[in-house]
């Protein structure tokens, strides 16, 4: 199974994009706005489409039919599995970190 940390420069952007697509298909501009609202992160246009390109190549997202200038993207079945695994790993890391902080 693909791992998001294998996307190098686009690692963080791929996680944010996939999280944005978790509740349904969106086109590039909508993903960008959603990520800003979700995480207070402004994805640069080059980073956004670079990351979309890598995710598409890896088969984790796919483009839907639509206008060529506003093509929507959605998670594939494998993409949903990879996202779920990644988020569970992060959740576990976060809860471990928080409990250690609380124990000090």
């Amino acid at each position, binding site marked *: 199974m693909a791992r998001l940390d294998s996307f190098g*420069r686009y690692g963080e952007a791929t996680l944010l994009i996939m999280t944005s697509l978790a509740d349904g298909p969106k*086109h590039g501009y909508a993903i960008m706005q959603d990520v800003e609202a979700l995480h207070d992160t402004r994805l*640069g*246009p080059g980073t*956004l*489409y670079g990351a979309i390109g890598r995710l598409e190549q890896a088969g984790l997202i796919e483009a839907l039919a639509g206008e060529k*200038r506003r093509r929507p993207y959605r998670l594939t079945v494998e993409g949903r599995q990879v996202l779920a695994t990644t988020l569970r790993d992060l959740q576990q890391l976060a809860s471990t970190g928080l409990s250690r902080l609380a124990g000090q």
Partner: protein
Amino acid sequence: MNLRERTSEWLLGLYPAAWRDRFGDELRELLENRPPTIADLIDLLLAALHERWHQTRTTGEPLMSRQTLRWVGLLGPILHLTMVAAGLFLGLDEESSEALVLLSMTPYLLSIVPLHRLYEQAWPRMSRAATKTGAAGTLAWPVMFAVALALDGLRVPEQWQVAAMGAMLGFTQMTSVWLVLGGLVLLRAGRPAPFAGAAGLLAGLSWLWVFGVNLAVHSYAPHLVSNSAVYGIGLAVWLIADPLWAMVVAAAFVWPPPELALA
């Protein structure tokens, strides 16, 4: 179209053609909805370079088009000469003048990318070694220069400053090796490359002498430097060979000899 939109359109042109075909329209639509900030333009530039590098690594396609190669081959040496001339003749204070002349090596060394293509065609067995050597010298030059300047600004003990300058000179000798190799490569090729080759050899060897052996000995063992004329002769040869080399290399990219046609 305002300046930022024009800049972003130009930046889109830096992406590989296949990438532009796939994502270009979507990216334009996005930039129409959200006019690019300066940070967005920098992001576009970095992502374009990243995509080019990714494409070269995964498909083996050239990093630059023939036209870009020629522009880089032409502009690198010209920018270098302009900075050297400004540093030497504009009557700047000594520190600014030295800094300008030293930094002028960076645009000059940009021409390593198109030169790599010449090496590949004229001397395939040497191309990798020549390019790696030049790239290492190119990267080391501004880094070590910055370290030397920072140490100077921090008022660290003088021996550390001398050590940093020594390291810079040592690293940049790789650049001289690249110039010498470049000269040898071009000597083997057709017109106008032999002239560039001879000038490159002269520039590389005098560069090795002026900024390498001579200054290192001067820094670490000043008692061994008995004749400053030796330094003067090396500098004079370099000042003649360097512009000659730059001009002829630039000409080789604008009017490449048939046997070195840039594919």
